[in-house]
């Protein structure tokens, strides 16, 4: 019913979204500000490489590891590559990996959680044991081991990071599914003989929407840091593609003393990105579902 209405009058959906965005901005200016910052970071990271004058991969042999100057605003790395270009380009790579793995992990966790929570019984019991085992390794260590075995590469990294999200998302979504299952309208749907599949997708799953949006914004910070830590430890995608974590790793690998312009900027950008997404996520959580306060 909902979807046919929306397709007949698409503008109502647009107006509804617009009015909630305006309300959010008016009630929570602080969170909106950080939301705009995170949006700006995303736009610059993905759009920047199109307009940047310097190639992040080409080396300038006259400026090997030179400090910030008029020519190179944030200096060059030990191979003479422009740090600014690498920061922007690497930001795009980092955010893409974080976003893709987050999306993949959340989808797997959400589907798993809804099905397990709704079906209950033996299936649920078994799946909870499985999730418990999945959660028995700290996320970073699990991803670390998987990348070691899978080898370096975009796809491997995304997959490994995604799996670290599955357990936590499953737990939250399952608890929502458990409570939705008790509601009258689900009982009504079942009493008129709706199939299990249809109840799960059309009646239970939509109720998890708010939780999923909140989970996505709140977890992006953690996954960016995990990705950065892995890259810092020398795992992740193969050189010469930069990511923020890899730039930090490169800053210490060749020299005893870290080089300050290679340390400061990538870390600052990671911090700023995670900070803005976290604050925005906090606001979004309070606006969409205050009950989640304290669980995340």
């Amino acid at each position, binding site marked *: 019913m909902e979807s046919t209405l929306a397709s007949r009058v698409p503008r109502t959906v647009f107006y509804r979204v617009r009015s909630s965005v305006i309300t959010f901005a008016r009630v929570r200016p602080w969170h909106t500000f950080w939301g705009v910052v995170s949006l700006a970071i995303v736009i610059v990271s993905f759009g920047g490489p199109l307009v940047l004058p310097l190639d992040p991969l080409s080396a300038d042999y006259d400026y090997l590891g030179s400090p910030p100057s008029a020519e190179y605003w944030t200096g060059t790395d030990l191979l003479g590559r422009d740090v600014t270009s690498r920061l922007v380009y690497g930001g795009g790579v980092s955010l893409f990996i974080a976003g893709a793995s987050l999306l993949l992990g959340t989808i797997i966790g959400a589907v798993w959680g809804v099905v397990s929570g709704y079906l209950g019984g033996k299936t649920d019991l078994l799946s909870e044991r499985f999730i418990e085992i999945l959660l*028995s390794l700290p996320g970073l260590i699990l991803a670390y081991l*998987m990348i070691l075995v899978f080898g370096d590469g975009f796809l491997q990294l995304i997959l490994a990071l995604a799996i670290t999200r599955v357990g936590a998302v499953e737990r939250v979504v399952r608890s929502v599914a458990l409570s939705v299952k008790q509601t009258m309208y689900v009982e009504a749907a079942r009493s008129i003989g709706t199939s299990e599949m249809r109840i799960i997708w059309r009646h239970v799953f939509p109720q998890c929407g708010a939780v999923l949006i909140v989970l996505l914004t709140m977890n992006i910070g953690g996954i960016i840091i995990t990705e950065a830590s892995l890259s810092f430890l020398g795992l992740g995608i193969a050189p010469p593609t930069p990511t923020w974590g890899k730039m930090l790793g490169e800053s210490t690998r060749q020299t005893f003393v870290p080089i300050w312009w290679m340390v400061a900027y990538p870390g600052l950008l*990671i911090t700023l990105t995670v900070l803005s997404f976290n604050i925005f996520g906090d606001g979004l959580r309070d606006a969409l579902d205050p009950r989640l306060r*304290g669980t995340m």
Partner: protein
Amino acid sequence: MQKYVVRRLLLAVPTLIGLTVMIFAIMRVLPGDPLVAYLDPNQMVSMSEAELDAIRKDHGLDRPLVVQYADWMGDVLNGSFGNAMFGAKAPVINTIKTRGVTSAEIGIIAVAISWIIGLPVGIISAVRPGSFLDMFTSFTTVLFLAIPGFWLALLILLATVTYWGYAPPRVGVPLWEDPWNHFQIVIFPATVMGVAMAAIIARMARSSLFEVLREDYVRTARSKGIRESVTVIRHALPNALMPVLTLSGVMLGFALGGSVAVEVAFQTPGLGRSMSDAAILRDMTTVQSLVLVYGIVFVLANLLVDLLYGWIDPRIRLG
């Protein structure tokens, strides 16, 4: 209480067994050649099939999976955790003993720091919501949650080396031989991790104490004329600490994982650096066993949190 402890302990056993199976499955069963982990990819391409088979045989990868798993479990159960693949081929347990002590100390000091800083900060901002102090501490905690630990480590290293020409020692000595040297190794990573964990605790303590302070029984305490400080600390705080305790499990995973990168950044001779060094050498026996150690520590720490929870709250242990 005893019954509860026994039940929780028994429940941890299947999880631990599952953990070993999962690690083994990631290493051997998942699609892909397990040799990828043992060899440099570039090296692998240039080798012939016969050479690869020889290496497989060398590492015992040609045996049936069940035998390989049983072999590893045998090593774990007899306490050697397998032998390192390179160097002196010493049992991995030696590394775990010498390096593990350092990491454990770091962890304990970090937890202590986090509670000592985090709890008062959380209480102060919950008692005066909306004040400047509250807004300041709220922002600081969110900020520290966003700073990657290993980056903070690099910054500290950079500052001490540039301004004081000082770097923490890289070679570990046992605590009882040279306490000062040992202290210098441990204190930096412990502080970095402690501060990050303090942020989580402060945040959680604030929001949970904030809720509890609005409960009826707190109002009753106040109306009886009990001093505000006693009301907050004796009446409200114990209840407010429960969610904080629940969160410590999640926090531990965060800290254990993060400690690897922090140890590598400081070049601390701890478990995390051993794992990273072993991974660079592609010594998969060591990596596999060290990952297991991290898993065991994580599971046991979570168990401890559960037991503590049951000890404090009778509803949990009897329910």
